[in-house]
């Protein structure tokens, strides 16, 4: 991954790519959904771009010719019925699908212009730039501190840095610091489900990734814990790009700037501003799905 700390530096590259994909490309538009003011309006660059992406599990096709451009520093929601491929798409981005022996990928999936399925891309390195939060909280059976420090340690960044400060920063970023600052040495498994999930978010942001993938991060949580996670996601997009899979359409409407609707068969049916998707979708199937007539 080339340096990505400055947005200007990657602008040219991304613009060129956008020009290259005329067919069905989603041109960046102003974000004017009923979101809080925390989200800057205006153009942002594409950070993840899929082009004709097919994913198969053995003989079953999980994604069918998906083309999408996901903007930086935005919350992009993936919605759709069970088995529609939205989680598969998420796992394709950081190549977690590699862990499934039967999985096979065709087509392009570009992260900052680089196809992550090129031979010279090491999935381990890729995942150090693209963090993930899972459906049910999966903290390691270690202390809270060690959970947060884990990524920095395995990535070799822990040496010569102020690890305590990094752990505190990550826990504050995940809105968990005040609750756990006196019990950093206790097991992460002793926390409540909602706290565990925020611990997993802290773990993911501790290494300062560019993108955070979230696979139904609130589906195992009660509504109060879920709303804390949603608030948190709102703040995370200032620094990160969030791509979230959710079953919960209200959640997608509440927190996302862009929404992608997948329908059965692994087809990306529509991708647009969240407001457009929910108020005036182009595709009848999307309207049916959103109004509950399908899926």
């Amino acid at each position: 991954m080339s340096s990505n700390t400055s947005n200007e530096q990657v602008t040219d590259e991304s613009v060129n790519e956008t020009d290259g994909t005329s067919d069905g490309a989603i041109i960046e538009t102003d974000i004017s959904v009923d979101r809080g003011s925390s989200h800057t309006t205006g153009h942002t660059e594409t950070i993840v771009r899929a082009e004709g992406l097919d994913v198969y599990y053995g003989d079953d096709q999980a994604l069918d010719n998906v083309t999408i451009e996901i903007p930086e520093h935005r919350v992009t929601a993936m919605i759709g019925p069970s088995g529609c491929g939205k989680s598969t798409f998420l796992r394709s981005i950081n190549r977690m699908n590699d862990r499934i022996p039967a999985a096979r990928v065709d087509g392009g999936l570009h992260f900052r212009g680089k196809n992550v399925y090129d031979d010279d891309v090491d999935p381990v390195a890729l995942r150090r730039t693209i963090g993930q939060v899972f459906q049910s909280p999966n903290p390691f059976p270690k202390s809270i501190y060690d959970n947060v420090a884990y990524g920095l340690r395995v990535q070799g960044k822990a040496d010569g840095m102020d690890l305590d400060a990094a752990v505190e920063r990550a826990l504050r970023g995940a809105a968990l610091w005040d609750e756990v600052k006196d019990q950093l040495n206790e097991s992460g498994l002793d926390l409540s489900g909602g706290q565990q999930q925020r611990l997993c978010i802290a773990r993911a942001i501790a290494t300062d990734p560019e993108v955070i993938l979230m696979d139904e991060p609130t589906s195992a949580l009660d509504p109060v814990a879920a709303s804390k996670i949603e608030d948190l996601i709102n703040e995370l997009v200032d620094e990160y790009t969030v791509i979230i899979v959710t079953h919960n359409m209200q959640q997608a409407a509440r927190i996302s700037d862009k929404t992608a609707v997948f329908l059965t068969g692994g087809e990306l049916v529509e991708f647009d501003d969240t407001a457009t998707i929910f108020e005036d979708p182009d595709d009848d199937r999307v309207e049916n799905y959103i109004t509950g007539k399908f899926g």
Partner: protein
Amino acid sequence: MSTKRETDFLADVDLGREKLLNRLFYGTLVVASLFGLAMLVLLLTDVLWEASQALTNFDIDIGNFLTATSSSRAEQAGFGASIIASVWLMVLTAVLAFFIAVGCAIYLVEYAPENRVTRLIEANLANLAGVPSIVYGLLVLALIVNDAGLGSVILAGAIALALLIVPIIIVASIESIRAVPSSVRDGSYAMGATKWQTIRQVVLPQAMPGILTGTILALARAVGETAPLIMVGTMLHATRYPDGPFASFSAMPTQIYNWTYQADRMFNGLAAVGIVVLLLFLVAMYALAGYLRKRYETDGSSISNV
């Protein structure tokens, strides 16, 4: 059957026979379950009774018994050298078996491709665990004691016992490693950890209590094994404290065995007391394994504490 008049739908139902069958079956199960317990109580009672009889009849001094070496004269014979030999055996066996077994288990669970060779290896592990222990003794006798010229020493005995328990530890380790939720592995990989980092820092720490429990239970089996040690070759009387892995020896079970066929009746008494010592070793090891398992289970339950 007072309700019979009011409720016709029960009129033709006679559950008497089924209920009788239920009770019979239940009774059979209870008897079957109690059988094991009864045998254990019988065994313990017998062992303790024999030992206490021996202590009084032959006036065995427990302090001397635990510290002295064995001797061809029953009055002077003790169990000390055999206890130390068994401790040596346990330590060496544990070291030899643990790393091979855990390494094999990690390979099979985390690395081995899903193919026929892997399935063949796994199926054979179960078979290996069922091989009679004397066969391992014969193998070590031929290859290590004679061909390699190691002689009938503690290390040779430990190799035989290690061969015996490696498959058992592998099977236990495979189960423990498989029991680590894949979600935790995913969490580690998603952090950009390599495979080895994930195994070393996430999988093994979580699987270790189960692996250790299996190892201790297997060692408890090894410490009571007699046949392979007899094949490897032990002293008739452990007359010297072993001074290292290359000392000749007679471990607890073999010394007990040798005492039981001596003409002097007092040796039989010594064997009875020796069995109590051996059982105490086993109980201590089972207790340790149970403690580890219990701690393991508490940890496991809190994972799903969502």
